């Protein structure tokens, strides 16, 4: 898989733009949209009108841009953690569950201490969200590090435990008594993420953006990142060089679980202002594709997460404006993903044969 992602220079993060432009992902998107046009035409809608509405919906107004930005935040947070994990060849497929647990712990915290001033509430929320996700990530990490259990299986299965746990919480113990819906009570006012003046963007955006260079720094500029890359590229050599492999598995799962948990907290405190049953439309899974599409590079993850978010927003608008069935907009999204991933595989295959 993409653990072998190639980099222009092994230790310096490539300039952000070159990531998506190098190779042919842009061409892949165009090809996918052309194929999508055939499908749209086949159901009797003008592809031109459909794509116009899609582009307008995604990029046509400041509102569209902010909406995509808000959607991109959880994807970016999670894919940054996954970038670290996949680079170490730890296949954390449990980000969805880690997000749910982060959301739940953060809600618990906010509802338990409703009177905290924002200066304490916000760091507390972040810590609670991170801790919830990190603990959920710690379970497969310990199983893998000390018992050799495959983390793909354990982290994947723990997703369902977390999702159903939250579902139970919002139906019974945490249920808002004033509502018929499966959701918790509204969070106290101090637990609402401040919004950037003049926009609808909450400060989670800033947190996510700051983490991009931070993760890149860890990966390429610290001994920890160096060791993680050695563990990922050649675990035998890591053991031989005296690197404590189990310890690094745990560190990486705690960070990536924690970031997924923070994403969950942000969805609660920044978007819904309460815990709801379906707090995530599969961010934890989409982020896997985002991380891979970003070539396991934090700057790549930034571009890929915004790209994905725009795709979703654009597809929504396509459905609203020209009345394309929901299923079809999803087909088009999937086509784009497949084409981009295929172009990536193609590029790597070619460079290997030639080199």
């Amino acid at each position: 898989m993409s653990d072998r992602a190639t980099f222009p220079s092994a230790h310096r993060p490539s300039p952000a733009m070159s990531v998506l432009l190098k190779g042919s992902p842009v061409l892949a998107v165009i090809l996918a949209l052309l194929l999508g046009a055939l499908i749209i035409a086949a159901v009797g809608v003008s592809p031109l009108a459909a794509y116009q509405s899609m582009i307008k919906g995604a990029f046509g107004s400041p509102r569209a841009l902010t909406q995509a930005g808000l959607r991109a935040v959880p994807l970016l947070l999670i894919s940054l953690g996954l970038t670290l994990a996949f680079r170490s060849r730890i296949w954390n497929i449990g980000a969805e569950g880690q997000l749910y647990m982060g959301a739940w712990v953060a809600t618990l915290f906010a509802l338990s201490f409703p009177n905290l001033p924002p200066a304490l509430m916000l760091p507390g929320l972040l810590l609670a969200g991170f801790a919830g996700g990190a603990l959920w990530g710690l379970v497969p990490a310990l199983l893998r590090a000390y018992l050799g259990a495959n983390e793909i299986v354990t982290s994947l299965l723990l997703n369902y435990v977390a999702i159903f746990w939250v579902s139970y919480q919002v139906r019974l113990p945490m249920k808002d008594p004033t509502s018929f819906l499966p959701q918790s009570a509204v969070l106290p006012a101090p637990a609402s993420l401040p919004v950037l003046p003049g926009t609808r963007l909450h400060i989670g955006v800033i947190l996510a953006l700051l983490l991009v260079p931070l993760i890149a720094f860890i990966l390429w500029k610290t001994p920890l990142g160096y060791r993680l890359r050695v563990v990922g590229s050649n675990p035998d050599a890591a053991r031989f060089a005296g690197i404590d492999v189990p310890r690094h598995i745990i560190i990486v799962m705690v960070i990536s679980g924690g970031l997924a948990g923070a994403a969950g907290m942000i969805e609660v405190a920044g978007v819904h202002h309460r815990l709801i049953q379906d707090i995530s439309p599969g961010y934890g899974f989409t982020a896997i594709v985002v991380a891979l599409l970003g070539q396991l590079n934090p700057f790549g993850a930034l571009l890929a997460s915004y790209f994905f978010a725009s795709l979703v927003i654009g597809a929504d608008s396509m459905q609203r404006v020209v009345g394309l069935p929901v299923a079809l907009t999803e087909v088009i999204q999937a086509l784009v993903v497949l084409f981009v991933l295929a172009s990536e595989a193609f590029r790597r295959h070619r460079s290997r044969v030639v080199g």
Partner: protein
Amino acid sequence: MRGITKRFPGVLANDHVDFVLEAGEIHALLGENGAGKTTLMNILYGLYQPDEGEIYVNGRPAAIRSPHDAIQLGIGMVHQHFQLVPTFTVAENIVLGLPSRREPFLESRRQVHQQIAEVSRAYGLAVDPSCLVWQLSVGEQQRVEILKALYRGATVLILDEPTAVLTPQECERLFEILLALVQGGKSVIFISHKLDEVMAISHRVTVLRDGRVVGTARTQDITKQELARMMVGREMRPIEKPPASPAGPVIALQDIWAHDDRGLPALRSVSLEVRAGEILGIAGVDGNGQAELEEVLTGLRRPHRGRYLLAGQDVTHASARELFEAGLAHIPADRNRFGMVADMTLAENSILGLEGKPPFTRFGMLRYREMEQHCSHLIREYDIRAPGPAAFAGTLSGGNAQKLILAREISRRPKALVAAQPTRGLDIGATEYVRRKLLEQRERGCGVLLISTELEEILALSDRIAVIYEGQIVGMVDPACVDIEQLGLMMAGAIKEACELPPRPPADRPTAPGSAGHER
């Protein structure tokens, strides 16, 4: 093949190479690692396309764009790393990918088995077609690969370093098979860098050096020395070894017992001592506990009994990192698996194990400039052929990779060095270089423990030799007064203590071999 040229970024792998294989001959392709042997054969097998040159098969120009084309033309290749599916049977592997005569069904098992048996019998390739491949020995797997090529109608068989993975007995079996093949009208190209086997098996030999043909000769018209000179480009100097002046012990194992991965006893009461300024050779047939000994010494395996002292300090329960920091260096037997990170740069590889330490880390940050300087220094000092510190380690040839590991390990000026199979798979030039460096370490006062299955190497380098057999040290001998045959018998467990070491003052005497009390 005429005028074949192949360029890779930064390297001219083949430079106008002419190569003629005649029907019914075994033609050896001899050259050091990185001389371009495998590249040339990969071109013939359609894995690479040449930049220039033509290929003729049976006098007709041939365009070989893929292995499929090569197979159509009757060319088969057995790679150094086998391309078999371990969970399939021999027969399933052999028909893998071939169209069946009863599509969409597979061929009848009985018919396939019968056909395989026929081919097997014709060339003495005894393999049971119903065996699962993972159950076979390496030599048998190689035979499956040969069968696979023959089953596909190969008349020309390319073998890439076929003996690298075989025991001496298996080598002889292979040679018999090859002779049977050429008697049956097949032709064989035999890639090797080992002079002895080239002399033993081939009819003609073509020598490659730096991508160019140095010459082609009939094997009977040429001597080993001439071939060596053609291959290396200069005369080999025998290694000179000044007498040892050992000091106190740096490594001491006392009654060490350890299990292998399956939980079976692998080391049984091993006691030995390596003194500063000497090389202790561990001789033995592969698989008699050498791997476990290497792992115990380097902290990768826990002994369940006994004591391990490094420079007087008890390190029985120390981790690999603690041993590293206590001054132990390690050249691993499986260098690609343990010694290198292929998709990291040479600079990054050159500090593996030192990554958190100054000058490579300051204020918690890695310093790439220091790393690159260190690496450039090693590249110069140790004559590593590499484009530069920013190149990926995976692009190095075997010999240069080993030089980098050696450079990294001994540039720390260790107190003790565990070198396991340090020249396995290396060409003559690199082998000689590595051996000289080991002797230099001994001169410097480092205690060197050399684990090698190559007796010649053990005899050339060691000051004392410990023979290991079934996890026990069955003898401790002086290389000056033992010959290869005697040592061979000890390694086979036939005799113990061929020759006592000359008496020493009691304080200086190495720990008595622990085998005495634990005979089976």
